[in-house]
């Protein structure tokens, strides 16, 4: 049935050889003749039927979304990808894409059953799959920015590969899609957005949720656009031609494929009327293909598929339940060697130190690049941290559209492709726009897929005391420290802040949020009399991003403060020492997550009184975690915490200064603690 024989052996199940051959990358070779198309499409359909059968027998973990009726639609673009660098980013309805890309039928069935042989070790189930350059995830449009980033990385290294990002028509309601299409157009990168238009999103008809025209959406962003139907003759060739054009033109495009979903969205949620479903079945492209073939050939193909899938099922059933050995406690990759020394700027402030670090990084590491809004000279970023960089490193310091989620996604894609992107978000308050990209994507891939690393650093100025009001003054670390797998760094002028940034970018291959307090930019970098606390053996990243300490070795009170609160805590310590005659110690972490628990316990457990101060809205935040840590470790001294109340931060300076903890508030809290 194959048009071209390959020396590569395809997947075989229990000695039953796969009824197709694969290329050097392991990707199935699917010919365009009716017999080849029918054979592979039948394999996909029968695999999904098998999955539904297993589901009804209670053998499937969770739920599944099938592409019954859309097999040709799902095969057409993926089968045409013949470059080893080609990427496919898919979504919840991904089995056809996955099988056309990987040919791993056993891996898919075992994965959906939650068995050890599953292609993603049981993490992914039906909708989160990874295989070489194939990734799918379960958030609508969530992968679109990532696709732009991957395509930008391909462009930067002059690869002929392209990225295909597949969405359904329901996803046309997601804003990130439009950020991504715009970015792709602005950057002119080879990404093809494929819209599989089956006219229904879960149970809601697209006609009830979509304004305007679909193809016009692509055209409006300057994308090349095409619209085809998988019910029409020549569809497979037309899809292949689109892939060839995107590969040739090296610019983004949008392909809309009209198709029809025969089954439900997921399970038991097909509420369409029987007449409509019958009409869809009558137009089934597989039936049309079968009609072109002699009956005995159709029967032979079906028999061969059935035999193969029986073997797949047997083998999947024989595979034991997926288990973790041992249960991973985190998904962080260890620190890497190879420090780029960032010289300390003599008498420089934090802004100068960060600027110097970025200069050093861009000069020393060609894989680094800076992405964000208004970074270019002569403006140099809202807080001037990127001043001079766009002039010195043209093409690697990129001012972007105002698309926080989109550029975070692009950063993830670039990072997955081996680059070391630094994304600047102008105000940390806007990180809420990036949350899905961090929470559901950046940290998920390294945790789910062992081969995926996302060395992304997102920098953001945060904090108040400038009268910027409720949406430009916040310290949102409390939200982000709770994201599993996300590193949160929030250094101060007492840390070697430039070196910390350089190490976060080059030596810490984990998605990282790097917070910078606006008021610290003008503070002189000075480690003063701080000493580095010995890092606990089990504390990830604690040696790379040290916690500092100063003051009495037998303190009456210990102030734990970080980031923008550190100068305030120091002023409070001075008052406590001079006016209250107290021996005061300050402990200043820069690494907030993963929390350096052992390091902190070693320093704090024998202290009589501890006050944790933070500028964030602190309920459920960093201080809460540190106090819980101490409580769980049978700390027997007195504890308190101080932060911002759960109300919006006012613009008026008089109100703001009453809201944010200051030195007087710290002194008062310490007195209360005695």
């Amino acid at each position, binding site marked *: 049935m194959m048009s071209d024989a390959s020396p590569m052996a395809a997947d075989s199940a229990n000695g039953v050889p796969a009824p197709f051959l694969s290329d050097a990358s392991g990707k199935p070779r699917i010919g365009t003749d009716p017999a080849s198309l029918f054979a592979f499409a039948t394999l996909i359909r029968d695999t999904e039927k098998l999955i539904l059968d297993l589901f009804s027998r209670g053998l499937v973990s969770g739920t599944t979304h099938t592409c019954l009726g859309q097999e040709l639609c799902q095969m057409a673009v993926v089968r045409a990808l013949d470059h080893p660098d080609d990427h496919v980013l898919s979504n919840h309805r991904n089995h056809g894409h996955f099988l056309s890309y990987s040919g791993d039928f056993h891996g898919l069935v075992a994965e959906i059953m939650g068995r050890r042989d599953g292609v993603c070790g049981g993490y992914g189930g039906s909708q989160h799959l990874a295989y070489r350059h194939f990734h799918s995830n379960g958030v609508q449009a969530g992968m679109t920015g990532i696709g732009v980033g991957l395509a930008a990385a391909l462009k930067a290294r002059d690869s002929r590969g392209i990225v295909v990002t597949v969405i359904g028509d329901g996803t046309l309601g997601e804003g990130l899609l439009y950020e991504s299409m715009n970015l792709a157009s602005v950057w002119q990168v080879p990404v093809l957005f494929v819209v599989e238009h089956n006219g229904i999103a879960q149970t809601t008809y697209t006609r009830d949720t979509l304004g305007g025209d679909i193809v016009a959406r692509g055209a409006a962003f300057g994308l090349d656009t095409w619209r085809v139907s998988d019910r029409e003759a020549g569809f497979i060739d037309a899809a292949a031609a689109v892939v060839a054009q995107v590969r040739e033109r090296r610019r983004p495009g949008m392909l809309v494929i009209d198709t029809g979903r025969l089954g439900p969205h997921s399970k038991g949620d097909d509420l369409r009327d029987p007449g409509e479903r019958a009409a869809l079945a009558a137009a089934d492209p597989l039936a049309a293909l079968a009609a072109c073939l002699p009956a005995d050939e159709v029967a032979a193909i079906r028999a061969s598929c059935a035999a193969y899938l029986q073997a797949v099922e047997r083998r999947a059933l024989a595979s034991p339940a997926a288990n973790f050995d041992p249960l991973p406690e985190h998904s962080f990759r260890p620190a890497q060697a190879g420090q780029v020394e960032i010289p300390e700027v003599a008498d420089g*402030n934090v*802004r*100068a130190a960060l600027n110097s670090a970025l200069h050093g990084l861009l000069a020393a590491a060609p894989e680094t690049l800076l992405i964000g809004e208004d970074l270019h000279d002569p403006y*140099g970023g*809202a*807080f*001037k941290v990127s*001043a001079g960089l766009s002039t010195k490193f043209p093409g690697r310091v990129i001012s972007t559209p105002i698309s926080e989620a989109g550029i975070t996604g692009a950063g993830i894609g670039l990072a997955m492709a081996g680059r070391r992107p630094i994304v600047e978000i102008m105000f940390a308050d806007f990180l809420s726009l990036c949350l899905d990209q961090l929470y559901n994507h950046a940290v998920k891939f390294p945790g789910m897929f062992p081969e995926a690393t996302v060395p992304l650093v997102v920098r953001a100025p945060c904090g108040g005391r*400038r009268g910027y009001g409720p949406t430009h003054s916040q310290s949102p670390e409390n939200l982000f420290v709770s994201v599993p797998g996300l590193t949160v760094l929030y250094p101060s002028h007492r840390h070697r802040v430039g070196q910390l940034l350089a190490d976060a970018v080059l030596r810490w291959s984990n998605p990282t949020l790097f917070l910078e307090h*606006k008021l610290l*930019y*003008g503070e002189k970098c000075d480690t003063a009399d701080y000493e580095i606390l010995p890092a606990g053996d089990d504390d990830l990243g604690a040696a790379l991003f040290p916690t500092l300490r100063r003051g009495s*070795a*037998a303190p*009456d*009170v210990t102030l734990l403060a970080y980031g923008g609160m550190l100068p305030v805590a120091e002023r409070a310590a001075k008052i*406590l020492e001079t*006016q*209250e*005659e*107290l*021996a005061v110690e300050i402990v200043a972490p820069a690494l907030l997550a993963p929390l350096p628990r052992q390091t902190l316990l070693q320093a704090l457990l*024998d202290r009589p009184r501890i006050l944790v101060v933070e500028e964030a809205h602190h309920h459920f935040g960093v201080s809460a975690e540190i106090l819980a840590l101490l409580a769980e470790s049978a700390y027997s001294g007195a504890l308190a915490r101080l932060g911002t109340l759960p109300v919006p931060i006012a613009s008026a300076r008089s109100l703001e*200064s*009453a809201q944010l903890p*200051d*030195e*007087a*508030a710290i002194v*008062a809290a*310490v*007195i209360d603690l*005695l």
Partner: protein
Amino acid sequence: MATPIHVPRINNNDDEVKVLAFDVKPGERVSAGQIVGQVETDKAVLDVTAPVDGYVLGFVAQPDEIAQVGSVMLWLGASASEPIPEAGAPTPDSSTAGPSPVTGKAKLLLARYGVKSDAVTPIDGRITVEAVERYLATHGLAAAAPAPVVAVSRPAEPRPEVPGTAVALSREEKGMAATVVWHRDCAVPGYIEIDYDPAPWAEYARAFQEEKGLLMPPLLPLMAWRLVEVARTMPRINATFVEQQRYEYGAVNLGFTIQAGESLYLAVVREAEVLDAGGFVNALGDVLRRAASHQLRESEASGATIGFSSMERWKVTRHIPVLPPHTAFMLAHAAARNGRAVLGASYDHRVLNGGQVVAALKKLSSPT
């Protein structure tokens, strides 16, 4: 009426700018729009111009000074002789309350001694540490304080007749003095030793080192570990004497003497009885390294319930150690001679008798 020229804002995000220079002098006549000086931020320099005609009365900010945006930079007047308006009184900051009547540290002291603050006479209106200490001294409370080590008060010693220089003791030397004084004044010390063959111990340590790939020869840590084990089975060697009773400790806090430069430390591994041999060797190694670099933590420099001392390093073949405060047993390890060695112990005779000490030493003389 005088006209102020304010420090201008250059950048949205900078509240402070540097005053670079003034192009005018006090008394000079300027016209509206004339440049009077420059300010700069990290990135930009900005000319400051006169808003009206007038005479320069004087500067408030100075060149090279960092000035708040919006503060007055210089004054212009209608005539050169006009006075500069008085600076307005600074707005009182309502958030900064005055200092409390009792300092924080004084509060802690009052609580420790159970003294009410109104009993204490303030100094300059506040109850300070000094005020509390005066009260304590006049009420005879200081000596009863539950401080860890308190020197027994005694009449001032007469100065020696021979002239010399008084050198203040270091912290460690004070600790040593306190230990020796405790041994002399509080314990009823005795010393016993036995003769033993050190070869099995040496072989045991050698095998342990080889098995674990240790850099440090683990003989002394392993012997100390054996002491912990013996203390677990013989609670009376891990004890002290309090108010006419034997006080058996609930944990074995092993004190280990270590010489670091000029300082002699008793480095303590707390709750050693919950560790296994490997864990103990590691824990003691950590503590000893911190001692060697003079970075012992408070909890590691106090609280020993039993002691271990070795003078092997100095090729000493016998020594009689001093008992650390509140212990009853201090093992004395020494260098071997002609294949034999002695293992001794100083002990508090109120807690232990000779037979008990010998029994403990016999157990300690072999690794198993």
